[in-house]
């Protein structure tokens, strides 16, 4: 399978989980990664700065109409929804969805629509139900869906509700998610071409 993008969502406990996830992705990770982490409106230091210190990939706060580039990690800016268009991002200030802006569901749904079966969705720790509906959309359109094993999550409610909604293909402990992504993201390249 030839995947085109990884979209990830996290809420309560997500800062730690995202660091673990990003630590495991190498410098030559071949897909773009887009992330929604629930947080307050003005969390001072940008999330990208905080995550950059543990990642080999370039991490940026997504700006409106940013081109989606492989090997780059995009974080939804505080107080904006992040949507995926055809090869670029757009932002929106529409009302909060499930008390959140950015909303994981909005990111996931737009990824499902734009990338279809080339989308990989990852839902991590959190105390609410954001992300389950979006992950289901990704699955319905043939994409690959992963939830953090609720037992390994700081708060298992969010991945748990996606699992209950039958939106999840693979349930994995946090430590194994990046390895699984590495494997999936490179599988498309035939053996001979690997350097």
């Amino acid at each position, binding site marked *: 399978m030839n995947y085109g993008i990884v979209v990830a969502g996290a809420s309560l406990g997500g800062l730690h989980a995202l660091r673990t996830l990003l630590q495991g992705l190498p410098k030559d990770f071949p897909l773009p990664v887009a992330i929604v982490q629930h947080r307050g409106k003005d969390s001072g230091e940008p999330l990208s700065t905080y995550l950059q210190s543990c990642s080999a990939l370039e991490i940026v706060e997504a*700006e409106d109409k940013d081109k989606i580039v492989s090997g780059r990690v995009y974080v939804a800016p505080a107080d904006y929804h992040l949507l995926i268009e055809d090869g*670029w991002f*757009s*932002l*929106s*200030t529409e009302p909060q969805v499930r008390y959140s802006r950015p909303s994981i569901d909005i990111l996931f749904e737009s990824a499902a629509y734009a990338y279809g079966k080339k989308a990989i969705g990852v839902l991590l720790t959190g105390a609410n139900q954001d992300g389950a509906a979006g992950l289901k959309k990704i699955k319905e359109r043939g994409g690959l869906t992963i939830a953090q094993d609720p037992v390994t999550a700081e708060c298992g409610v969010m991945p748990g509700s996606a699992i209950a909604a039958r939106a999840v293909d693979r349930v994995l402990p946090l430590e194994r998610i990046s390895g699984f992504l590495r494997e999936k993201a490179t599988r498309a390249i035939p053996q001979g071409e690997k350097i």
Partner: protein
Amino acid sequence: MDKEHACDTVEKIEIQLFLEGVFRLYGYDFRDYASASMRRRILQLMEIEKVSTVSELQSMVLHHEKWMERLLMAVSVNVTAMFRDPPFYTSFREKVLPLLASLPLIRIWHVGCSTGEEVYSMAILLKEAGLYDKAKIYATDINEVVLNKAKNGIYPLSLMKEYTDNYIMAKCGGVFSQYYTADDKNAVFNEGMRKKIIWAQHNLVTDSSFNEFDVILCRNVMIYFNKSLQNKVHELLYGSLKANGILGLGTAETLRFTVFENRYKELDRKMKLFQKVM
């Protein structure tokens, strides 16, 4: 073609035809709005109205004008707040107001002003800097319903806590409650704060420039447009700015993908304040 794919294709065609029809009949041009959020809002309206295809919605909107009003409310995202992004206003006071202070008359255009919170925030900023009396503020939006709310300057009291916090975070010097009178439900902005503001319906996509301005704020409006429409609108804004005029965008917006990138210099990179240079 697999099933999902076929549905997507039909839906895409339907949306295009729908927006084309709306444009031809009513003159509202949403054809170059960013498609992911446009699709989302059309589907949302369909869900509320319990119609299952875009074609059905199209039939309703084209045959009954009252549905056009519903559509306009659904597609124009009107969420706003007073002193939204407090550091923007701090930066505006520190970096822009000094440039305006010596002008005999200060003309400001708020594009996509929605229910007016941004406009009253600016009025307060100017008042506290002693510049309000020589200001003339134009505030426009595509949507007349929100414009009427803006004109009235009446907001639910429940929002005032958040707005007061924003006002304080923007490091304003006064007392926020001095600008309105409150009854048990609403806050009504003082007549004095409203007298310099001219409200008008204006569609950024289809209407032309109507004046020259020292400052244009167009925040969180163009995020709903695709790149080619953004370029077109930037041309209008650039042409409506005086030499050395100021352009303010939303904090997640950028000039990077437009042909106007080099025609402005950055006054504040993070707060998206630009000055026209040529």
